[in-house]
């Protein structure tokens, strides 16, 4: 109902007006990793070659690759966790629904003993 919101969602700062960094899972980590990778790559290149402009280009390329790599890695792990979570939820639901019946997943049939309600 209006006026009874549980917790106000943080407004979320949007990078370039596009990416809601605070409310999108993995985005904050990806951007931070990208920033770190960018600074590292650019700095190392500059220390090795003393070329400023090219170092900026290398730094930017480092940002793109690190952000993308971190993003894909985090999202894959996230997706695996979601699948596991769904399987666990289904398992719990099946356990509750079928408990005490012949379809109970925890039932191990034993020889000579009837299973399920008579």
């Amino acid at each position, binding site marked *: 109902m*209006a006026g009874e919101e549980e917790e106000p969602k943080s407004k979320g700062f949007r990078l370039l007006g*596009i990416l809601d960094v605070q*409310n999108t899972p993995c985005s904050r980590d990806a951007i931070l990793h990208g920033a770190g990778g960018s600074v590292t790559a650019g700095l190392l290149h500059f220390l090795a070659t003393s070329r400023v402009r090219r170092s900026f280009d290398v730094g930017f390329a480092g940002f*793109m690759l690190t952000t*993308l790599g971190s993003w894909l890695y985090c999202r894959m792990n996230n997706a695996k966790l979601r699948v596991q979570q769904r399987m666990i939820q289904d398992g719990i639901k099946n356990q509750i629904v079928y408990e005490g019946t012949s379809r109970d997943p925890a039932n191990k049939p034993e020889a000579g003993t009837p299973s399920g309600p008579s």
Partner: protein
Amino acid sequence: MAHPLQLGFQDAASPVMEELLHFHDHALMVVFLISTLVLYIILAMISTKLTNKFILDSQEIEIIWTVLPAVILILIALPSLRILYLMDEINDPHLTIKAVGHQWYWSYEYTDYEDLGFDSYMIPTQDLAPGQFRLLEADHRMVVPVESPLRVLVTAEDVLHSWAVPALGVKMDAVPGRLNQTAFITSRPGIFYGQCSEICGANHSFMPIVVEAVPLEHFETWSSLMLEDA
């Protein structure tokens, strides 16, 4: 439901909508990276002192700007196709509901077990109770059991309408003389709002859809009460 000045999607209430949300985040990150790249290239072009007015071709750059967009498209297409096929999976529904669009209200029929049908009109603004949502509340909600696969057959009685509930990731056109099928599972109990999504006349904006997901025993109680009232 949607809140004022909202830009993003509503919180997902079905597994399909969760997947759509995640795909949207992924696509948005790709868009963000491309935008950053373009911005950087623009700044680099503006600030460079190197100019060559006589470049005719360059194999290396042409290979890069052919292969890279292809890779990006594959990066977007693979999760997209995965969701496309996920949405088409046969899910053996527990319940079938018919949603019929009229000018200007929806009617719902639950005819699997008994003959239950009712109309769902928008509650006018002047009749709203405190806390109710303007242009979104309906006098009779479409009540469904939570976490049960459901099938909705959508059609229309007169003109084109469209049955849409953003939180469930569902939208299906209501075409007169045609039955369109959609399916969903609500992951959590709650009330989910939608609005007619195909222009259908003067009151097109005033025929909302309200889906209420409740536990099965509450759904059974509700359907018994509705049958008694009918």
